[in-house]
């Protein structure tokens, strides 16, 4: 019964979109907004965990979809397309937001850095060694190792983020750790 209702809703949306595209009547887009604003908002709120950001982004999702409506394939279901746009915009938003925060933190570090130029040169050499050591790891190892040491995530967090099992994560971190030490010491 629910499946049938969903089918009927899809047909209704497809009709509105056809009318919008053939007649240029933007009121049909208003109807689509009314129909899908709740689930789109829920997606944005779920990802951003902030009501105001989610509200602004929900509006942006519908505007972005409207601007790109001619790229949408009318034969495909509409909501998954809209959902993808919401997810992509949230990802972009989060990345921009984290960058701002990271830049602010960096500024604070620079202000409090009391070390001289020699230390900075040493750090540069060390940085290169570490970079090479990490680059030598295989992708899953590198991912799990960095999530654990660099991003300070727990084993369970890493399982959720990567989709690897707990045993795989444990093994990747252990092997990565060994490899890192060997590669690092060889270059010291």
């Amino acid at each position, binding site marked *: 019964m629910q499946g049938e209702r969903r*089918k*009927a*809703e*899809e*047909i*209704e949306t*497809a*009709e509105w979109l056809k*009318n919008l*595209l053939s*007649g*240029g009547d*933007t009121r049909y*887009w*208003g109807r689509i*907004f009314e129909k899908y*604003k*709740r*689930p789109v*908002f*829920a*997606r944005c709120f*779920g*990802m951003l*965990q902030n009501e105001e950001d989610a*509200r*602004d982004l*929900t*509006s*942006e999702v*519908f*505007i972005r979809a*409207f601007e790109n409506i*001619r790229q949408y394939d009318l034969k495909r*279901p509409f909501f998954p397309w809209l959902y*993808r746009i919401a997810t*992509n*915009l949230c*990802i972009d938003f*989060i*990345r921009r937001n*984290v960058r701002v925060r990271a*830049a602010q933190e*960096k500024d604070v570090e620079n202000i409090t850095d009391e070390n001289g130029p020699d230390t900075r040169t040493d*750090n540069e050499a060390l*940085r290169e060694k*570490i970079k090479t050591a*990490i680059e030598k790891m295989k*992708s899953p190892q*590198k*991912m799990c*190792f*960095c*999530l654990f040491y*660099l991003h300070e995530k727990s084993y369970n*967090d890493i399982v*959720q*983020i990567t989709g690897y099992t707990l045993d795989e994560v444990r093994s990747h971190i252990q092997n990565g*750790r060994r490899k*890192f030490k060997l590669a690092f010491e060889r270059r010291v």
Partner: protein
Amino acid sequence: MVKNCDEDAVISGCGPVLDSLKNTDPGQCPAPELLAGYHSRKLSGKWKRQIEDHTALCPLCVRALEAMQAAEEAGTAQDGIPENWQAMENALDKRFHERLKVVSAGWTDPAGRKTTPRAERNILQSVADAVFSTKKLVFAGALASVAIAGLYSYAFFSRVDTFSLSRIQPEKITRLRAGTPDTGFGEGLRQYGMGEYGSAIHSLEDFIKENQDHYEAHYYLGISRLADAEVRLLGLPYRFDRSQVEKAVFDLEKALSLGRDNSYYTADCCWYLGKARLMLNEPAAAGEWFDRIMQLGAPYPERKEDARRMIARLDRAASALINQ
């Protein structure tokens, strides 16, 4: 264990330098689609490796992956609505409509022709100006006006309606005419039978003012409105009056509530209410009316067959849409 501690000591000694390897530029990050694909475990091979290599050193992408995970854990789309949704909804509506107004300002041309950027349109306009002289344009405009006026006149006088109402109605009209003493109502029916839907609407409206509970009058007023709402010319829609269809829905629902005991009218009202909903692009609501005909005790079999066919068509259209 000792070995691990030793390794940990090496790594923690590298801590601040390790931190400096982190990516802080979103411009370096992979496309959001790829990250979403990684999160939904749809990537493999080269793409998966590339995402992992990048994400290992990218707190921005790690945060985005965590957010997707958090959203998934929060539940399905309908669950994640905060309690003060009502207040937020108003602000959201306002913001959306303001933005839409701005964005849709250059977006009114049918069939996608107005997506041409403004600068490009100006160039096209200049080319058109160069090719056509003003006199030629005036002549072409006059010719087009005459052609359009001709077409509209033809359509107005021919009034080809799409409902095929006359196919099923004459018999019933004759029967009712013979039986009804109401002359105003009889006049409305006569006009309806002649295809003079506009006049029929006026006559029936006047009649209803004095006889508000006359369900047949409401019924015929409803279907006259439906027939009057859409006129086709050579098979193509040339005029559609949405408000007329909405009024028809009101009349038919009134007829349905008044003539509940007459199964003939109940089935017919449901049928035309379904059709009206289709005209309003509301197939879900239309389907409910056709379903209702199927559930009726004793409607005449043709109408039940019509409803069955219509439901099958709606279902086919729905599954075609879903499968694609």
